[in-house]
């Protein structure tokens, strides 16, 4: 990444947010994100919240659940697998977080869905960007 001298703090915070989006399934590494934004970790968290309206943790969890919602509606992957895929090793934590943010369970959310599901074998292949087209149903 090029270092542009005139870059504002907001632009650097956006870059850190982009890094979170690229690594949404991994545990949050605040010190690493703070380095991307060229801020101290405590200042980073404070400024992130001021600029984007939620803490880095809140943002990450919301984005994970949004991804899970998309997968629940557009694939027939098992709920456990979706939770794992967006960064939750435990089904309990995934379901609890999902419910806290959306007000319903993953299963209930999926049941309300109308989009024709994509077979799980295809969806799994989607997740591996380097192996596109190698789905084996």
């Amino acid at each position, binding site marked *: 990444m090029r270092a542009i001298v005139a870059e*504002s703090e907001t632009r650097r915070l956006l*870059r850190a947010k982009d890094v979170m989006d690229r690594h949404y399934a991994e545990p949050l590494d605040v010190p690493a994100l703070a380095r991307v934004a060229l801020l101290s970790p405590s200042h980073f968290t404070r400024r992130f919240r001021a600029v984007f309206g939620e803490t880095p943790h809140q943002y990450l969890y919301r984005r994970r659940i949004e991804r899970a919602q998309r997968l629940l509606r557009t694939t027939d992957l098992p709920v456990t697998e979706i939770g794992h895929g967006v960064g939750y090793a435990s089904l309990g934590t995934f379901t609890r977080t999902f419910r806290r943010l959306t007000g319903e369970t993953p299963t209930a959310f999926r049941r309300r869905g109308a989009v024709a599901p994509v077979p799980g074998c295809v969806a799994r292949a989607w997740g591996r960007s380097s192996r596109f087209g190698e789905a084996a149903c």
Partner: protein
Amino acid sequence: MFTSIAITPMYVTDQDEALRFYTETLGFTVDTDVDLGTMRWLTVALPGDPERQVLLQRIGDQTATGSAETAAMLRELTERGTTSWMILNTDDCRAAHAELTRRGAEIIQEPEEHPYGVDMAVRDPFGNQIRITQRNDWRP
């Protein structure tokens, strides 16, 4: 009533930097680059779609973006990633990804499969998102 979309803006804070990014990194070509006195009118287009232009509009040109206070707000919102953005079509998203990686673009989303096709995203130097989509025949 109308025949086509002619020009849409992308807000930028530095037009020289914008010109470099949109031509050298994304592959646009310059259509018009002229000093109107009140603003530098700078438009680019894709070689395969020259009629559809993107205005690289400098935040701070008063005719376009208002007072200094408004410009500061616009810059802040742009740097939060929430003003202008666009979607480009491609025949091969993964090839585009490889080329953009080679050119040093700030890739914010790797190619991902969706019901509508494959897409990825890059950030321009100013905060604007450019999504790159290889569409299939799927329609919602």
